[in-house]
């Protein structure tokens, strides 16, 4: 009998810990989030720049900032987020079954993922592309020189497929060595176990920064794939889709208009242009369709800063958390400076 009661106890305990109320079909995601009191935001396993751990155990990074921005828009508190760090294998399932409210992690926007998973991409918050890194003294100047080379690659993403496609297209006969852990991959490369590493270029840059001698390695100019990365939500809740999408747009638009974390409060009181007045909730009623309070953009920018500030903090080279990817002239610069970052008008 004791054993039976123990069994029952174990089952009860697990059930008590495990089950959490999930969204009922009729309720909108915004209502559920509000009722719960915090946002459930899915991020990936640590990747420098996008999401990684600080010494006190908190999450930081550019994708983390998007999560915090949405939380600030809803609750006026960027810390009301429960971060769910999930491996790439189960990321779509975890979003589809309601475990997370939305997904803000390095996920490439593709037709298949946008249409066949019951999920949808909101917008792009980082333009990436797959590239190669080789030792400088290898004499390789172009990815086309990699004929017959051994290339280290991480499993579980489109990276593996892109490499094979590139090798087949250019008849390079590249031998991939697949890893599950980026440390093991990096060390294999550093000790000469493979001739090159392939990954998204942001990842290459951040990993390079951690090498004993970063100057001895170079990232080849070719970009073999397009990797537009952006947040994803479940299909079927238009309002929630808009909230996530326009929060990202607000970050970009704020940078464009010169609104930043420092001046947002004073600009909200005295906007310098009609569009700024509309965006910061001084005029008009743009918040109506989103179901957010009037000053939601003020909250967002006040909590995490504008897109440029976030980029500088986590991707740039000046801050201690940054991974040192230059922005000027890249696709991630504002459209006014030749980049692709472009927010539709707040009107």
């Amino acid at each position, binding site marked *: 009998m004791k054993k039976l009661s123990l069994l029952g106890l174990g089952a009860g305990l697990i059930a008590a810990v495990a089950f959490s109320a999930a969204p009922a079909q009729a309720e909108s995601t915004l209502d559920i989030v509000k009722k719960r009191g915090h946002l459930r935001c899915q991020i990936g396993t640590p990747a420098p720049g996008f999401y990684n751990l600080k010494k006190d155990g908190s999450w930081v990074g550019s994708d983390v900032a998007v999560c915090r921005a949405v939380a600030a828009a809803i609750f006026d508190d960027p810390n009301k987020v429960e971060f769910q760090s999930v491996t790439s294998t189960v990321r779509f399932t975890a979003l589809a079954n309601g475990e997370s409210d939305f997904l803000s992690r390095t996920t490439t926007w593709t037709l298949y993922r946008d249409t066949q*998973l*019951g999920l949808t991409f909101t917008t792009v918050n980082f333009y990436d592309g797959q590239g190669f890194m080789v030792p400088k003294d290898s004499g390789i100047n172009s990815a086309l020189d990699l004929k*017959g080379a051994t290339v280290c690659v991480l*499993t579980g993403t489109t990276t593996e497929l892109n490499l094979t496609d590139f090798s087949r297209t250019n008849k390079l006969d*590249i*031998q991939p060595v*697949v*890893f599950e852990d980026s440390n093991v991959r990096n060390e*294999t490369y550093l000790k000469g*176990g493979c001739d090159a590493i392939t990954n998204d270029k942001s990842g290459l840059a951040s990993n390079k920064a951690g090498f004993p001698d970063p100057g001895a390695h170079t990232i080849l100019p070719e970009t073999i794939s397009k990797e537009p990365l952006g947040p994803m939500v479940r299909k079927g809740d238009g309002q929630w889709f808009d909230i996530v999408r326009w929060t990202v747009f607000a970050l970009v638009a704020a940078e464009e208009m010169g609104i930043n974390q420092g001046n947002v409060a004073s600009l909200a009181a005295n906007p310098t242009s009609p569009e700024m007045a509309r965006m910061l909730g001084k005029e008009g009623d743009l918040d109506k369709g989103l179901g957010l309070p009037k000053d939601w953009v003020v909250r967002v920018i006040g909590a995490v800063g504008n897109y440029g500030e976030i980029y500088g903090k986590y991707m740039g080279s000046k801050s201690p958390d940054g991974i040192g990817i230059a922005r000027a002239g890249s696709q991630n610069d504002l459209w006014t400076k030749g980049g692709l970052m472009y927010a539709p008008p707040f009107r």
Partner: protein
Amino acid sequence: MAVADKGLSGASAGSSILNDERYRSVFYQIVVFGLIAWTGYYLIANTANNLQSRGMSVGLDFLSGEAGFSIAWSLLEFKPNDSYFWVYLIGITNTLIVSFIAIILTTILGFFVGIMRLSSNWLVSNLAGWYVEILRNTPLLLQIIFWYLGVFSLLPRPKQSLDFGGAELFFLNNRGFYMPKAVPGELFWITVIAILVAIAGAIYLTHRSNRIQEATGEYHSAFWPSLALLIGLPLAVFFASGSPLGFEIPALKGFNFRGGGRIPPAMCALLIALVIYHSSYAGEMVRAGIMSVSHGQTEASYSLGLKPSWTMRLVIIPQAMRAIIPPMISLWMNVVKNSSLAIAIGYPDIVSVFMQTSLNQSGHAIEIVAMVMLFYMTVSLSISAALNVYNKHVQLKER
């Protein structure tokens, strides 16, 4: 007494149907069966519902689809446009080959460790003892990473390869161990048949010698005739059919060696980690097995005038084997299962190429997980079936 009667024969007069053991057992079984059936139905219904609402389908059709990725190393040939089913087979062969080699080496090393543990040399037995303790008490995953990063990545690059024997045939570098690959010619099958015939002949000779010994008591060693047959016949046939075997020699071309056979470093590291880790368990089994044979057996066989080597071979080892083999076989099962940790260092075993990469690319979780489990179950069940046969064979015949 009345109480005891009831307990022993439930159908005794006066007890109600509730206390009848037969009815009770039928009732329990129906309850258990009902529970299982209901759980199964519930899970399947949920799954079907979930799949439908997510627009996913179940079926093995995806197996014929093009995989689209490459595999770093495989025993059989693999091209990116091969199907997922071929990926499955590649994974199986890769797992089996690495497990097979690891099992053989583990057993051999395990005997060494076990005998070292029993050594009269204080240092040797203590070293072996610490070897066992350290390996048994740290996670295998850490050990695999250690061997891979700590040892095999430190090998020289291809251009500075170690050349074994200086004959430019065997090379070792951080891309792997390269060796000449045998390329069988057209008539090679005759030699293969000759080898099989020679093996059968050797088995027959050994049996005959045993039979003669049992019948007459005279001992005629079958060792030398068998050896002559095993080596002589295939060689004779091989040369008679015109030496139909060529060799492909590895040579440095561009970044890597081309041609010949290659064992990648991940496989070497995995093999060494598996062998070393499990040999610590095997060593303990061997030690326990030898210790389990009573010392009286040794003394008895000495008093019969047997030499120490014969005592070991004919008296001690056969008895120790009875205690060694069953745990050893379950250790072999563990080797096969633990080879799945290859995923950490990039050896393309079945879990890595099928359960990780293929599952990610195709999204058919249920089918893929089921197929991988089916494979492991088949291997384990055949090993344990072999174990059962062996156990029946060697069980003490008590009279």
